[in-house]
């Protein structure tokens, strides 16, 4: 991708610049992702709100509605994260059940979609399908389900079936699970006999305004992509740079076509952190300030401890990376999916080399690592608007799922300064397209 190809953001959608089977809509949809548990939500500032109080969720959802966001997202983790065998103390932790909370939000919002991340391994499909349909009916067709597949036995310790699923079976199981849910939503009789259990049931609730909840999928492995291409309406992807997002679009279009579906029927929304200011210089300054607040000396040491698997508290956060080998057996197994790590030796060595080459301290290195995962949506209002318009024109993404670094005021500047600029550029809706989440994401009816 050359910079020449990336200029002229206002010329409208290009014809299949990424894949012949894909025609960009040139439009973006935003979601706001209230993660609840993570290292990016700053809790040290006086304006950081309560992470559990309903008013935090309500304020964020109402702001998002003012900015015509398509969706309000909640994350899920079914066991408190641990660090070296102890619940992790340094990040925000503790959140309400996603769907219970969304059922309450349905009554105080009007337009925004309500999306719950829910695991297929530790739920029962009919129970989950009924809850989601209840939410869909309560909200007038605004429910969504972000399908995730965490399978570790450590999480399973909280559930009847325990950690009964092999890693390789996650998506096989997830697909069967989603099929049962879809049968339930259609009101069809269900007679499922799977490897792990049997289900006999019959859907008994009426159809919602959007037919059924919108299916999101988050999970980027090839098996996850195949699963999404066959079953999902939206992929919540981790690929936020133009290059990675374009590659991912091509891969998903290939797979969607192979699955016999119209590639326009699977939208892609990468997770993103957006840090904005009036000028580029101010934005750069702000990014540094945000990173300092996100990653303090304690978090920096803890980040390394996850991979080293041992106590590193004796090391100076302002000094070089630890020159001791990792304790491989303890690394990273309890922080949940995404933190599992087998090649600790190799990784810690390469990190030491990287930090030494760049002259970074532990603290600087940890801040750089945490920022690098988050795509490229920091800068002045105009620069970010231009960049996003280019993403839309290319069709690399269909929108963003934004993780605010502050709750509940973390999207105020996006709504006040970025959204109007995107609307001026013709890539963001001025009004909600309809009353259902499906309509507001531009998805075909079911």
């Amino acid at each position, binding site marked *: 991708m050359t910079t020449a190809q990336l200029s002229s953001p206002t010329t409208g959608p290009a014809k299949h610049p990424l894949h012949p089977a894909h025609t960009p809509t040139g439009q973006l949809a935003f979601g706001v992702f209230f993660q609840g548990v993570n290292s990016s939500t700053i809790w040290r500032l006086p304006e950081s709100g309560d992470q559990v*109080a309903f008013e935090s969720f309500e304020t964020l959802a109402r702001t998002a509605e003012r900015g015509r966001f398509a969706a309000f997202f909640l994350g899920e983790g*079914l066991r408190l994260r641990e660090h070296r065998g102890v619940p992790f103390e340094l990040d925000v932790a503790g959140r309400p059940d996603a769907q219970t909370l969304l059922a309450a939000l349905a009554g105080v919002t009007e337009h925004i979609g309500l999306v719950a991340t829910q695991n297929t391994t530790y739920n029962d499909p009919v129970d989950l399908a009924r809850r989601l349909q209840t939410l869909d*009916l309560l909200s007038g067709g605004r429910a969504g389900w972000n399908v995730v597949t965490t399978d570790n036995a450590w999480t399973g310790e909280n559930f009847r079936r325990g950690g009964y699923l092999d890693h390789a079976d996650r998506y096989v199981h997830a697909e069967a699970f989603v099929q049962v849910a879809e049968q339930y939503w259609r009101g069809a009789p269900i007679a499922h006999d799977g490897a792990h259990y049997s289900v006999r049931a019959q859907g008994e609730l009426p159809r919602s305004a959007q037919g059924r909840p919108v299916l999101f999928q988050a999970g980027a492995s090839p098996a996850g992509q195949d699963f999404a291409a066959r079953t999902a309406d939206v992929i919540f992807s981790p690929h936020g740079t133009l290059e990675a997002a374009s590659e991912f679009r091509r891969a998903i279009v290939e797979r969607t076509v192979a699955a016999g579906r119209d590639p326009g029927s699977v939208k892609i929304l990468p997770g993103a952190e957006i840090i904005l200011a009036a000028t580029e210089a101010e934005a750069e300054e702000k990014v540094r300030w945000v990173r300092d607040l996100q990653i303090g000396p304690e978090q920096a040491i803890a980040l390394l401890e996850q991979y080293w698997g041992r106590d590193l508290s004796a090391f100076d956060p302002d000094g070089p990376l630890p020159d001791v080998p990792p304790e491989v057996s303890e690394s990273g197994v309890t922080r949940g999916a995404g933190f599992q790590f087998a090649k600790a030796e190799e990784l810690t060595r390469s990190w030491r080399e990287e930090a030494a080459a760049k002259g970074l301290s532990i603290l600087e290195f940890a801040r750089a690592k945490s920022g690098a995962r988050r795509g490229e949506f920091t800068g002045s209002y105009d620069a970010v608007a231009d960049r996003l318009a280019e993403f839309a024109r290319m069709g690399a993404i269909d929108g963003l799922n934004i993780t605010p670094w502050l709750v509940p005021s973390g999207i105020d500047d996006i709504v006040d300064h970025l959204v109007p600029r995107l609307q001026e550029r013709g890539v963001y809706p001025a009004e909600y397209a309809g009353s259902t989440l499906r309509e507001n994401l531009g998805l075909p009816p079911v």
Partner: protein
Amino acid sequence: MTAPAPRPAPAAETAPTATTAPAETGGAPDGAGPEAGPPVLAVDLVTAPSLLEGLAELARGLESAGAGALTLSDGGLHPIHLAAHLAPLTEQIALLPRTDALYVEPFHLATQLMSLDHLSDGRAGWLLQAETDPAVPAAVGREVLGLEASAREAADVLGAVRAVWDSWAPDAVVRDTERGVYVDASRLQYADVEAETFAVRGPAITPRSPQGLLPVLVADTDRAAAGERVAGELADARALDVDVSVGARPERIAAQIAAAGPVGLVRLVGLDLEADPLGTVAQLVGALRGRGLIAEAPSHGSTLRTRLGLPAAPFQPDPARRADRARLSREEAA
């Protein structure tokens, strides 16, 4: 959490003797808590899809008419979701889903109910039901339990749910900017439940809710399946079922309450929503309250525990279940 305001004691001459003593049915205050007064009047709503139209208006109307609680019985839509939906749309009325303890994941159930308590600022309760319809276990791939097994399972689930509720101290979220500590693991504990058919490790993924332990009640209609141990010993109170589909004459209902013995909730079942439900409830409330047979309208901000005369539920730390025990043993070894 704000301390619940003690409810004024009922006037002695109007309170029937049957309800002045603290409920004997478990969770009995050992003299420390507020006195149990007359029961709270609840209206039962069945969660059929047709209920959705005008639901918020109906709930607010029943609140204004003086009902102290709503119970949500399963009619298709999920009762916990409907209760949660009503939480921000109402102000004082208590919200009790009547929902199954058996064919569910205890960890999810505990989290959902404590989330309801957060959403309603301490107005949540659980009307524990032990499902007898074979369609429910079939949907999760299980066999229907016989009466004895069902009673045992209900007791185990109730114990597990309470252990999850009691896994965070109220002050576990410390937000200590000096030390960079958001949550203090020494103020968390594992549930560490090992029951016959399941295990739950914990701690909760949700911080302690305003009431800590939600009041758990058993309706008369569920008593047999829930079993004597749950209904009589482990639950906090009994819900007396009053069928109003056959008419809502205050004299008949007053006699039923007086004859019932200690109850926490008087639950009106079968209220005709097509007729004049608000008028019926307002009239009943007037007549029953006049005789001191049901509790006064709740004061704003009081928890359901307070309204039921239950003592506050302090965090009960168990040193063996401390969530930071791995750190402690490392420190000891060093």
